[in-house]
C-alpha cells in the first residue's frame, strides 16, 4: 500500500509541484529537484503511517485531487483568448463589435446589396458581450485612446440612461 502510494506521489510530484508546495506546511524548495520533493513526501507518509486512521484523514483533507479555476497559468501568465483579440473590438462602454462571416467567399455570386452588407461591422448582443468579457484579461477592458480611431463616434452611447453622455458639472 505504502509503496504504491509513494509511487503515485512521485508521479504527481513531476506534474503538480505547485500543489505540493501548498500542502506542506514548511516551504519545500523546488531547486533540489524531484528527489528532494520525494524525500519530503516519504517523510510525511511515515508520519501518517504511525496512526492508521490519520493517513486517510490526511488524504481526505488534501487538495491534491481538486482543481480550481485560475486566472493565471502555472507560469503566472494571464489567460488570454488570442482568437478574441484578433477578431473582436471592445468599445469603452462594454460593447463588442465584429465582422460578418463569409465576407470574402463566393462574392461573384452575391448581389451588390448583399456584398455591401457583408462588409459592415456589427455589434455583438448582450450575452455575447458578457461572454467575451469573461474570456479576456482585464487589460483589454480598459479604454484605449488611439489617436484618430475610426470607431471614436461609437465610444459614447446616446439616449442611454445608464451611460449618460454629458458629465455632471460640479463646482
Amino acid at each position, binding site marked *: 500500500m505504502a509503496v504504491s502510494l509513494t509511487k503515485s506521489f512521485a508521479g504527481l510530484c513531476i506534474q503538480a509541484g505547485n500543489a505540493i508546495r501548498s500542502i506542506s506546511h514548511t516551504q519545500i524548495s523546488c531547486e533540489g529537484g524531484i528527489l528532494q520533493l520525494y524525500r519530503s513526501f516519504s517523510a510525511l507518509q511515515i508520519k501518517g503511517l504511525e496512526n492508521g486512521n490519520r493517513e486517510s484523514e490526511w488524504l481526505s483533507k488534501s487538495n491534491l485531487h481538486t482543481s480550481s479555476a485560475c486566472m493565471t497559468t502555472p507560469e503566472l501568465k494571464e489567460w488570454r483568448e488570442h482568437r478574441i483579440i*484578433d477578431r473582436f473590438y471592445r468599445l469603452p462602454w462594454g460593447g463588442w463589435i*465584429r*465582422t460578418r462571416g463569409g465576407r470574402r467567399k463566393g462574392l461573384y455570386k452575391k448581389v451588390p446589396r448583399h456584398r455591401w452588407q457583408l462588409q459592415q461591422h456589427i455589434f455583438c448582443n448582450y450575452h455575447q458581450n458578457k*461572454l467575451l468579457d469573461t474570456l479576456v484579461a482585464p487589460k483589454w477592458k*480598459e479604454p484605449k485612446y*488611439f489617436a484618430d480611431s475610426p470607431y471614436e463616434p461609437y465610444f459614447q452611447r446616446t439616449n442611454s440612461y445608464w451611460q449618460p453622455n454629458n*458629465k455632471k458639472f460640479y463646482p
Partner: protein
Amino acid sequence: MLNGDGNMSSKVTERALNLIKSMPRVALNNIKPLPHTAFKKKTDRRGDRKKKGRGDKGQGARGTWDPLGYEGRQNPLIDTSPRERYYAQYAVRRQYPPVSLLDLQRLIDLNRVNTSRPVDITSICNTGLFKFDISKNHFGVNLTDEGCDQFAAKINAEVQWTSELVIAAIEKNGGTITTRYYDPQSLAALYDPLAFFKKGHPIPKCKLPPQDALLYYSDPNNRGYLADPEKVLEAREKLAQKYGYKLPDLEGDPFKEMLLMRKDPLQIFFGLEPGWIVNLRDKSVLKPKDDDYLRYYHSAQ
C-alpha cells in the same frame, strides 16, 4: 496637609486631562460594534444539505458545464467571425488620453491651473485629476473639442494631440497652442516632476518624434512644434477666415511674452536645460560644464 492633598489631586486631574487630550478621539474610523452584536445566529444551513443547492443530477450537480464559448456542437462565434486586426500593433501604438476644453475651463475657473504661465502636460498632471501612465503607452494629452463654445480663457497651451476645432477655439480667445511630442522617458519626468527630481538623475533631452508622427508635428495646420513659425502665422489667419472670427492682435498684447513662450525641441521643463540636475535638498541646480557632456545634451542625436 489639606493643601498638599489639594495640590496632589489637582496634579492628578491635570495629568488625567492631559492624557485624555492626547488620546485619539472617538470617531467613525475607530469605533466597533459591541461583541454581542457581532455574533450572528447561523440560519442558512444550505451547506449541510445533501445536494448543496445544486439540484438533482445533471451538469450543474456534477460541475461538468460546457467550456465558455461552446455553443452545443454549432461552430462558435469566436471561430465563425472572420479575423480583423482591430488591435494591430497594439504594443507600439501611441495612446493620447482625452481632456476636453470643458475640463480645462473648469480647472482654470477653480484656480487649479495657472494661466499666467504656459499650460502644459505637467500643469494638467499637477491638478491630480488626470492620470497618465507610460507603461500603458500614454504619450500625453489629447485636447478634445467638448465645450468649445463655453471656452473663454486666454492661454498658451502645449498639448500632444488636438483637432482643428480646438485650435480655433483657443486662438479665437487670443491664446496660442502648440502640439509637442515627448518620448516616454521625458514623459515620466513630466508626469511627476517631484518624483523625478528626488531620484537625482540629470534632466533628459527630448528625442525627436518617430517617423510616423513626424508629419503631424511638423505640420503648421496642427501647430506642430517642428513647423516653420512663419507658416504657423499664415495658418492662424487661414483658420480665422475659415471659422469666421477676427484674430486678436498678438503684437499689442500685454501678455505677448508669455503667449509666445516655447520650449526648445530638446528641452522638457521651462527654465531648465537638459543635462542639469536639480538638488531639492540644497535647493540648487547643478549645471555641468564638461565639453563631452554638453555636446551630448545639446545635440539631437
